[in-house]
């Protein structure tokens, strides 16, 4: 399978290189949907220029990248385009390898459950075959590399690509079963943008499953492993943060990076939900609402962990989607990451109820973003409500997409164990509803 992957990589690199050389590159770099105050390339260049002038880049409110990014780009700033293309390629390759391994795991588990007669007799059509699973890794890599969102994110040189890459490596390490590497990459991802903290739960569940440790609250080995993994994770995080201190010999980066992510002072419009609310809110309530909004990201982890404890990779997908919808400064690069996972669940297609309307909503909104931005900022005939309406619609589309997949996944699991033809007590055909 290496040859098609190489072809896909080459095609993706060509597309990106062509776009870098065209006029669109400047246009895309300035788009607020692609570049947020956290990961805009202009701010990286500004921060490095400030450093050359002898001023700390964190002294103003311009630069919100972590010191490791400063270190990376200090030496690679002339090759920035190459760096971002390589980052995208690495992400795709990591996802490819991860999903390949994951497919093997799924197939083995399926085989085990069939042999143990855990499945109902009439569900033969629901079982995944190796034939249809063969091309899934390639499709995942394809979906990531040739997604217009990823291409735009790469052309804009947004450091979201680096974040995606670290998360992809974390997924690869988790699926391969190496707790140490997974903890290290998760620490790196959390260090860069705070939200991957929530991915701790699915990773833990996956590793526990791999080690055949039952997830019971009373089990001693469960707590032992959890403590091990948590301590690995926390130690790596502490080590990375202390190492970053030594780059500039100051702790300035903590309020600039994490304080900025959590307190959301910059209200530039983006595709997220925060900016409009906080632009019109009174100072009195802003702390309360910041807490509410931020809790929203972390809140779904425990319920999802309880419901999806048998299916940690799906849990990871849902969690990634929740992060990219509810984080404080989302960009289309974050959306692209979880969309790359959709081919894995292409077998759920028959259970998805609203997929047509949702894909239409997402595509239309993507096209309407620049239109309404132009109308608002340049033509002056619209106002921020119009742009926020599109933001809201886009996010509603994403939420419905995720919940549709969630419903379809659970429905398939239910059918697998209870059979395809469900009957109610009085014999008529029953329908599953997500409550």
């Amino acid at each position, binding site marked *: 399978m290496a040859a098609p992957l190489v072809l896909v990589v080459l095609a993706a690199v060509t597309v990106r290189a062509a776009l870098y050389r065209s006029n669109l590159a400047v246009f895309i770099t300035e788009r607020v949907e692609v570049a947020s105050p956290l990961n805009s390339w202009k701010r990286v260049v500004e921060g490095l220029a400030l*450093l*050359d002038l*002898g001023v700390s880049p964190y002294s103003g409110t311009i630069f919100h990248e972590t010191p*490791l990014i*400063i*270190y990376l780009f*200090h030496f690679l700033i002339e090759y920035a385009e190459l760096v971002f293309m390589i980052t995208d390629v690495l992400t795709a390759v990591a996802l490819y390898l991860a999903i390949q391994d994951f497919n093997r795991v799924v197939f083995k588990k399926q085989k085990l459950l069939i042999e143990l007669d855990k499945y109902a007799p009439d569900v033969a059509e629901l079982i995944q075959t190796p034939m249809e699973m063969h091309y899934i890794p390639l499709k995942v890599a394809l979906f990531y590399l040739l997604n217009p969102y990823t291409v735009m994110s790469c052309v804009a040189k947004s450091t979201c690509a680096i974040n995606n890459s670290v998360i992809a490596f974390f997924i690869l390490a988790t699926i391969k079963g*190496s707790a*140490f*590497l997974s903890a*290290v990459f998760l620490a790196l991802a959390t260090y860069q943008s705070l939200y991957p903290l929530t991915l701790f739960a699915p990773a833990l569940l996956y590793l526990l499953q791999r080690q055949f440790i039952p997830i019971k609250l009373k089990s001693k080995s469960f707590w032992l492993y959890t403590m091990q993994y948590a301590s690995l994770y926390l130690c790596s995080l502490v*080590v990375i943060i202390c*190492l970053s201190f*030594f*780059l500039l*010999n100051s702790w300035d980066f903590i309020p600039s990076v994490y304080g900025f992510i959590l307190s959301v002072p910059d209200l530039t419009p983006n595709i997220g939900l925060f900016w409009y609310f906080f632009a019109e809110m009174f100072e009195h309530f802003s702390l309360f609402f910041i807490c509410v909004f931020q809790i929203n990201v972390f809140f779904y982890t425990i319920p999802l962990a309880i419901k999806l404890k048998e299916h940690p990779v799906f849990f990871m997908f849902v969690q990634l989607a929740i992060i990219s919808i509810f984080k404080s400064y989302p960009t289309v690069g974050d959306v692209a990451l979880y969309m790359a996972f959709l081919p894995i669940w292409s077998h759920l297609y028959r259970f998805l109820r609203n997929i047509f309307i949702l894909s239409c909503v997402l595509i239309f909104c993507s096209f309407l973003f620049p239109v309404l931005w132009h109308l608002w900022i340049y033509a002056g005939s619209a106002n921020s409500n119009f742009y926020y309406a599109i933001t809201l619609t886009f996010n509603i589309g994403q939420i419905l997409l995720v919940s549709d997949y969630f419903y379809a996944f659970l429905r398939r699991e239910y059918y697998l164990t209870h059979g395809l033809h469900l009957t109610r007590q009085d014999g008529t055909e029953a329908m599953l509803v997500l409550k």
Partner: protein
Amino acid sequence: AAVLPLLLGCCGAALAAGLQDQAEQFFRSGHTNNWAVLVCTSRFWFNYRHVANTLSVYRSVKRLGIPDSHIVLMLADDMACNPRNPKPATVFSHKNMELNVYGDDVEVDYRSYEVTVENFLRVLTGRIPPSTPRSKRLLSDDRSNILIYMTGHGGNGFLKFQDSEEITNVELADAFEQMWQKRRYNELLFIIDTCQGASMYERFYSPNIMALASSQVGEDSLSHQPDLGIGVHLMDRYTFYVLEFLEEIHPASQTNMNDLFQVCPKSLCVSTPGHRTDLFQRDPQNVLITDFFGSVRKVEITTETVSLDRDVAGFESKFPEEELATEPLKYAEQLPVAQIIHQKPKQKDWHPPGGFILGLWALIIMVFFKTYGIKHMKHVF
């Protein structure tokens, strides 16, 4: 036994040579004061570089010690307060606004339309109406070393003033002869940065004149770098490299004229700079840059006390008989050299500290070996 007198003789000769050297050094140049006449002859905004040229030479001679009272600065147009200047009150010589040669204490003696051929020749020859203020006069005497720097647009044998008149090389040579006859200079250094500049010094016939030009007859002098923020070329190449050369000079420098002749070779300047030394009596090797560009006094400092009152003969000196055999202190060495040279701010590049890099790579290697095991090390070595 014959070796000893030979040795003594050698020592004596060395000592004598040392003394003679010192004496020669003391009497190397016969001047006692320095003057500078700096002329920019072109007006209009696009001739920014000529004003910047003149101001950078002005800055250098002031930095090396010639006071404003001994400098006659003639600028044909005002660039710093020109309405087209996007950075008012500044004249830059390096792009990216690295060096502002206008500074805070510029004294322009002849400005705007006062810069004419007639005024220039009157300044040189001293035939000035009695109402002219002191700052506009060249009050040199026969022990003055004068630096004359001219820049603008020129051609074969002439230099254009103000876009309306010209001074020819014959007129200039005659003016210098008048100066020599009236004993108005000891030695003269003439530098010109224009197209075909060498033609201007071809006709000199007075003694003790050394001349430098930025290009030969038939060649154009080219401008250096434009600044995209200001929109014009900031300096001419020859004067730019002369300025860079002069930034390294401080009042105690022993750099001589031969180094100045090497400034701006053809590879950097595109034109071939020329010089003329046949009218000069000393060897250019012995002529210090500070003889013309600076204002270095021949001063010797002693540490002995000198008693002025005969009655207080019994006053014991502060320093007892054990005289420390020190070198005689020179005036120029007392000056704060470090503050005088390298005044152009240098861009400092930031580098990540070594400890950070070491720590980061140690961590990466540790993670690598922890994951893949030590057995892989044998593949590395």
